[in-house]
């Protein structure tokens, strides 16, 4: 057992405890209280004057897949020969030795969504992982499939135009997405594709991968920047009554009414953190950010690592307070809301009893760029100590 004493605790889902203790047993948080007395504690950490946050979550990264220091341009995100590959698993390409993981963890990020790319219409299964550097898969994997990643808009259009393969425009992208969902619906009802044995395995795998989407167990996570790409994704999700998460959502501010009405979760960023040469991400996102917190929309942020390094996500968000969003909703978006979007809110995202003991102890407010991270706990173990 491990006891953290006298810290300022930000449980996120409960009010702030200005001086309190956290008891950790094995991998889980056991108790949070103002003064915990326990005899069987074998390690104490004095957090007097320190701030304790739940481990931060980056909701959209390519960490581990798009590694740092790759020596030649190898494609790790998109299996581009086929626009529809929902059966590919991001976790199969995830390298826990990626130096980006260590860096991110040392800055307080403990969990991320590691996703496939956005060139394909459906590119694969996004995974929820913890950032344990050089860890074993059974330790760092939270869930292997938290959503099927897809892309609409410019990315598929641009790439497939260059190789003259369908889809070269938005109409065809939407068709491919629709048809694969119709196929999956038919497959649930007992339909079997009529194909030769060489392609049949692939085809069946694709259909099986889409079943949890049709059954509303996991969402489609669609990369969409422009307002009408977002509406296309929404329209298709409505047709099949499936769950949807919009990634990037640059122009979502033009259609907030519709997004609020249908309660579509958004994963914002990295537009606004950085300049993009792409046509579709030209909209200035963050000057509208305050409308989100007033409308009670579920939103989180993604660094889209390596576009912005995951490690710098809290620094990037610190600037958003200038645009009228308050710190507590920023902290929520970086913790519990991200966990909700990933479907892992029972395990991570807040400091509560029986949740995983992923904690960050800092010497000041997390959004202050000068703040130093003192300790990082993942699964109840100290993975970083300054």
């Amino acid at each position, binding site marked *: 057992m491990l006891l953290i004493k006298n810290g300022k605790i930000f449980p996120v889902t409960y009010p702030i405890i200005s001086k309190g203790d956290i008891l950790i047993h094995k991998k889980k948080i056991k108790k949070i209280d103002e003064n915990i007395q326990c005899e069987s504690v074998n390690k104490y950490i004095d957090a007097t004057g320190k701030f304790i946050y739940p481990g931060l979550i980056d909701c959209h990264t390519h960490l581990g897949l798009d590694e740092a220091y790759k020596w030649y341009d190898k494609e790790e995100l998109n299996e581009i020969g086929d626009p529809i590959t929902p059966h590919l698993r991001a976790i199969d390409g995830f390298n826990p030795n990626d130096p980006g993981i260590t860096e991110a963890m040392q800055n307080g990020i403990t969990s991320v969504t590691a996703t496939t790319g956005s060139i394909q219409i459906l590119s694969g299964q996004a995974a929820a992982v913890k950032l344990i550097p050089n860890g074993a898969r059974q330790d760092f994997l939270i869930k292997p499939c938290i959503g099927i990643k897809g892309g609409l808009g*410019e990315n598929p*259009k*641009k790439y*497939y*135009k260059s190789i*003259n*393969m*369908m*889809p*070269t*425009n*938005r*109409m*065809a*992208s*939407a*068709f491919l997405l*629709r*048809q694969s969902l*119709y*196929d999956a*619906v*038919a497959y649930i*009802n*007992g*339909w079997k594709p009529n194909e030769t044995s060489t392609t049949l395995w692939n085809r069946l795998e694709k259909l099986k991968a889409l079943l949890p989407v049709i059954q509303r167990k996991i969402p489609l996570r669609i990369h969409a920047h*422009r*307002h*009408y790409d977002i*509406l*296309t994704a929404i*329209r298709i999700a409505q047709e099949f009554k499936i769950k949807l998460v919009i990634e990037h959502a640059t122009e979502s501010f*033009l*259609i907030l*009414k*519709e997004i609020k009405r249908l309660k579509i979760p958004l994963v914002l960023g990295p537009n606004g953190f950085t300049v993009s040469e*792409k*046509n*579709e991400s030209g909209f200035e996102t963050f000057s509208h950010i305050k409308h989100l917190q007033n409308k009670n929309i579920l939103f989180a942020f993604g660094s889209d690592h390596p576009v912005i390094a995951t490690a710098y996500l809290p620094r990037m968000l610190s600037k958003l307070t200038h645009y009228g969003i308050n710190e507590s909703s920023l902290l929520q978006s970086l913790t519990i809301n991200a966990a909700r979007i990933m479907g892992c809110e029972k395990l991570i995202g807040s400091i509560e009893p029986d949740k995983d003991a992923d904690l960050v102890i800092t010497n000041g407010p997390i959004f202050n760029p000068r703040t130093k991270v003192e300790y990082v706990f993942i699964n109840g173990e100290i993975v970083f100590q300054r």
Partner: protein
Amino acid sequence: MKELIIISKNIYENNQPKKKEGYLVIDQEQGKIKDIVWGKDIPKNICTIDFSNYHVVTGLIDCHTHLGLIENGHGEMGNDLNETTQPILPQIRALDGVDYLDPYFQIALSEGITAVGILPGPANIVAGQGCAIYTGHGNLHSRIIKENIGIKCAFGEIPQKYSQKNTTNIFPKTKMGMISLLRQKIDTAKKTINSKQKIEHIDLETEAWQMVLSKEIPLRIHVYRNYEIDSAISISKEYNINIVLEHAPDAIKKTEAIKKNKIPITCNPYFIFPSRREQLSNSPYQPKILADAGITVALSSNHPEIAINYLQTIAGLSCRYGLTEKQSLDCVTLNPAKILGIDKFTGSLSIGKNADIACWNGSPLDWKSKPVCVFIKGKIVYQEGNKYAVN
């Protein structure tokens, strides 16, 4: 119930000014025209707008545009007109590529155009499904009038040009080959529909053909030449399907056959530069000749060929070449509504239809006239000098 009254001396019932004082009663909750009353005794306690000296006309409709598919000023990434990877694609939908915030929607509104038919481009033999949407009134989903108004086909030089550029052999290179491929696809779809499996599997391509074969929607065939019109008519007879001819300058030589088969025609604006050989037969008298033969004719801008704001100019010009004012107005209101299959909802000022109204400061066909106020479903969506204030 929220109601609105519009008073005017020039209400265009049936696209003709009555020259008599009267008023329209609009039910703003339903967005419909509730009543048209002639006389001066206006009921009190209802919100009233006085357009006495203005011309109150139904909103104009352009049934052949590519509005929002080619976005203004967005380069190649904003161009979703043609999917040239396969020659026959009845399953793709124009609605999925429409940028409804393209500035030309607002410009169309300011010219009194309230509804548009948006079709995919002409590079494929079968290019996809068109849609009919309002030019204003909220976001894309609240603007939809009809999601599927027909499947766009193209014969002639444009698909031929694209298929000859394409090096793969899935594209037919000749006009004979194109017609044969089209027939092959329809026949295959027919066969699939007849041999329906027990388990429902929705194949969007077959679904699309089924809608055409059951006469739910027409094939909207882009044709220019004489013999292409013959091919189109023969296909419509062979499969017993509805067709609409788009552009069809040579139709003036075939009025009897077209009349007999009740085929509507959408005319291209004649004042485009003939960039292809097939366009040489464009004639300014085309609408007049077709209308006089009793054919349903619509005028269109074919935006972005001519920008959509010139629809009024196109209608005005056709009067110069022989159409009467009523005929000309029909060609940009009721007839396009019929072609789009939305004439139950809009296309004229009549009781029970949606209140899509433009109030012009003169005759709507006069080049100096301009709309001062435009309503869609009874809601003000444009006011002169107040470009973005309402919507």
